[in-house]
């Protein structure tokens, strides 16, 4: 494969980029290319380092505020993690998934040490979906019950059980019928959940802060209430900390904010340090849970979860997070970002509707859906890569690597300020149109957006192509 282009403008030519897009479109997905281009998200990432990357086409430095949905907690190409990988590579490979190894034990022990008290048993998985499926299987197996209560807008993954726990029609629709026995209540609505929980409930599953839904923190009352409800009814409480875990929210785990310990907790994403996949399910050493696992030790084997290389890399990731107390930095920088966003919201009530989140897991909700893709573009112009939610484009997540320092956070805040200014300039054009209900519907419709923004994007590209021709620059 060709060497990675360096971070110079023109390190990748327009022609090369078009070639990659054509190949991706033919062999993976044309629709995805169109969709990403329409939303100004078709950036290539080179020189991935620290809190960002470089666009090889323009040479522009980007701060990564998406972080692959929270994978890059320790930053991109973290040297300590690279070192661990290189040491692992001198001795290990994926290993043998069902064999005992000191590296699996060391990682399991580290997870137990870091996790809230009581979670002291581990099962490794290959990715988030895998461990959520394991958690639901464990809950059904250990309780002998069948029902699972989840929340509307919840996001747990794309495997059979995890998808069945997703509270979004968008991901479920074409795959139905899914696993029976899943019931849904609004997030943060304890009374509604109480209505659904019975002596048939195996588990209640929630993200302590809903992520993909658009960053909705669970209230103390809600999470404590779930704990009490589960204790009363004999259901197991599952916290999916795949996105919130390992310092992202200002605590090592989001559940520490309220001091509620679940019976089962799933972790993935950032445990791999942005380099090497891994995932785990932690659970309490309660009799029913341990009893089930010990009676059925092979209830959920994973042929690449907890791999030798993976465990060595993950251990280095956790040690890095722990020794640098990264959650404290997430809390501090998150507080700065949130304050700045709230100020922007007060200044721009016609653009920003709400700011939500904890630590460096912060979401903005714009007034209109069409503002998400527009802001993505405006932010990109200012060197900040941020993605709006695919099926809720009015919501944008800001999840920069939690190693971000003061000066870098200044840049993040400055980029968002500038982008909002750009939006203000464009709004007089878009808003009057948006007042006509049909146009608003069109502007807010995801497919129409792909077509419409795609068209706008093609016009923009055409203009910039023309201007390059006129300037005699490379094309």
């Amino acid at each position: 494969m060709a060497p990675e282009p360096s971070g110079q403008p023109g390190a990748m030519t327009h022609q090369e980029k078009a070639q990659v897009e054509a190949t991706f479109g033919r062999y993976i997905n044309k629709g995805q290319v169109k969709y990403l281009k329409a939303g100004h998200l078709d950036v290539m990432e080179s020189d991935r380092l620290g809190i960002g990357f470089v666009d090889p086409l323009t040479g522009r430095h980007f701060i990564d505020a998406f972080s692959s949905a929270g994978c890059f907690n320790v930053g991109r190409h973290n040297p300590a993690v690279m070192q661990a990988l290189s040491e692992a590579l001198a001795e290990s490979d994926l290993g043998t998934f069902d064999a005992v190894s000191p590296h699996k034990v060391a990682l399991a022990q580290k997870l137990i040490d870091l996790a809230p008290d009581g979670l002291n048993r581990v099962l490794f998985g290959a990715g988030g979906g895998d461990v959520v499926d394991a958690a639901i299987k464990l809950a059904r197996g250990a309780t002998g019950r069948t029902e699972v209560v989840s929340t509307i807008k919840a996001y747990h993954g794309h495997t059979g059980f995890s998808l069945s726990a997703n509270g979004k029609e968008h991901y479920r629709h074409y795959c139905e019928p899914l696993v029976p026995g899943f019931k849904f209540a609004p997030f943060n609505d304890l009374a509604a959940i109480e209505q659904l929980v019975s002596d048939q409930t195996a588990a209640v599953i929630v993200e302590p802060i809903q992520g993909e839904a658009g960053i909705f923190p669970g209230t103390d009352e809600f999470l404590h209430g779930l704990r009490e409800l589960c204790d009363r009814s004999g259901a197991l409480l599952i916290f999916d900390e795949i996105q919130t875990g390992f310092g992202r929210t200002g605590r090592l785990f989001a559940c520490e904010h309220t001091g509620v310990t679940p019976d089962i907790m799933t972790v993935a994403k950032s445990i791999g340090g942005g380099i090497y996949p891994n995932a785990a399910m932690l659970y309490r050493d309660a009799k029913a849970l341990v009893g089930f696992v010990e009676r059925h030790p092979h209830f959920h084997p994973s042929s690449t979860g907890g791999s030798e290389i993976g465990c060595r890399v993950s251990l280095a990731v956790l040690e890095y997070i722990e020794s640098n107390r990264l959650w404290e930095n997430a809390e501090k920088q998150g507080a700065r970002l949130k304050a700045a966003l709230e100020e922007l919201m007060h200044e721009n009530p016609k653009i920003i509707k709400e700011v939500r989140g904890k630590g460096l897991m912060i979401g903005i909700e714009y007034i209109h859906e069409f503002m998400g893709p527009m802001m993505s573009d405006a932010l990109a112009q200012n060197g900040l890569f941020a993605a709006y939610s695919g099926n809720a484009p009015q919501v944008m997540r800001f999840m920069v690597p939690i190693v971000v320092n003061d000066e870098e956070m200044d840049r993040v805040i400055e980029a968002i300020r500038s982008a909002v200014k750009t939006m203000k300039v464009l709004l007089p054009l878009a808003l009057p149109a948006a007042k006509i209900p049909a146009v608003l519907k069109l502007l807010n419709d995801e497919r129409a957006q792909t077509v419409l923004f795609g068209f706008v994007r093609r016009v923009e590209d055409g203009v910039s192509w023309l201007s390059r021709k006129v300037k005699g620059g490379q094309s």
Partner: protein
Amino acid sequence: MSRKQNDAFAGYAATINAAHVKYLRGIGADVIEAKVEGPYVFDDKGKRYIDGFCAAGIHNLGRRPQAMIDALSEAVAATDQGNFPMISREKAALAQALAEFVPGNLECSQFSVMRGECFDFACKLARGFTQKKTLVGVAGSWFGQTGFPLTLSEAPLKDKFAPLLPATKMLPWGDTDAVAREINADTAMVAVEPIQAESGARVVDADYLKALRRRCDQTGALLVFDETQSGLGRSGHRFAYEHAGVTPDVLIIGEALGGGVFPIAATIFTQRINEFMNSHPLIHLSTFGGSDIGCRVATRALSLYRETSPWDNAATMGDKLKTGIEKIAKKHKVIRSVSGAGLLLALNLGAKKRAESFCKHAANAGLLLRPGAAAGNFVLLRPSLTISAKDADDILQAIEKAAAAVG
């Protein structure tokens, strides 16, 4: 046993699973892999074993192949996993390489971090594309542990997690009449492993696969082959379906795609089917699946497969081993039969306990094995595809010793 080993076993029992440690001792697999190299595993006292398990066929190219170690090393120096929904040259390059590598008109890819996730995706793709609901499997299958694959697998524990997915059916093994009867206008897909590894390396008859192909063509159902264990050379062919002369609509390639050093798997399908995904992009996401590092590693693995054609050696060594085991079986009746193709072989020991005991004795003789996960009376033999004739002789010797000890 060394202090370090003792600590690892005690630690594993306390934090992960005590019953599993006991199980491993029972089958002689309580081995700490201190060093791995080619077809071998060495424990911390330096005892050499031939890896006859290869993590259920992940290590097709042997343990720690230098070319793969180098590829991973270079990939990590150059890039990281990337933002998962993004376009990247690594993803595009691997997808193109897969299209060129895989026989037939299968040319669109969806990447996953593991095989089960591929199967989940295949089921979703089939339902989305066909707008039909019913998913059909074949008795004796083993597709994975997550929701969809578990539902269509012959997993001993699956009732503990019921109710599983509705609108599913299992075809009885080898019954061609059932093909016409059970696959109908409501069928979204039919999934089968051309060789059912965990059910005694049971080879599905080519005529049966042809019957499935015909019936799927008649009804509009998608035909899905899971070649996680049989693919990438293990069956003695690049893919087992080539040998059978039947091309599926959807192919699952398992973790052997990562060359034994990185978790990556892929689902490959036709352009016709991809029309659905093109009009519904990003309804199936995988954070780790299309990792740019993983894509670079897998692209290198595919060229290594191409350069070394390990399927040729798998065919030769597979024949040698099969013939050798048949000879041993004549002498030691405890081995009732040997089945499979290439280097995906299974010995029928008649009972689960005997199969476990056989594994233990084989380990004592320097050969690591596991019983079948679905049919526990079988012991599977899946060494790396790179074994030499001398390794094959060593394997046969260990099998003979184990047979003598058990019988």
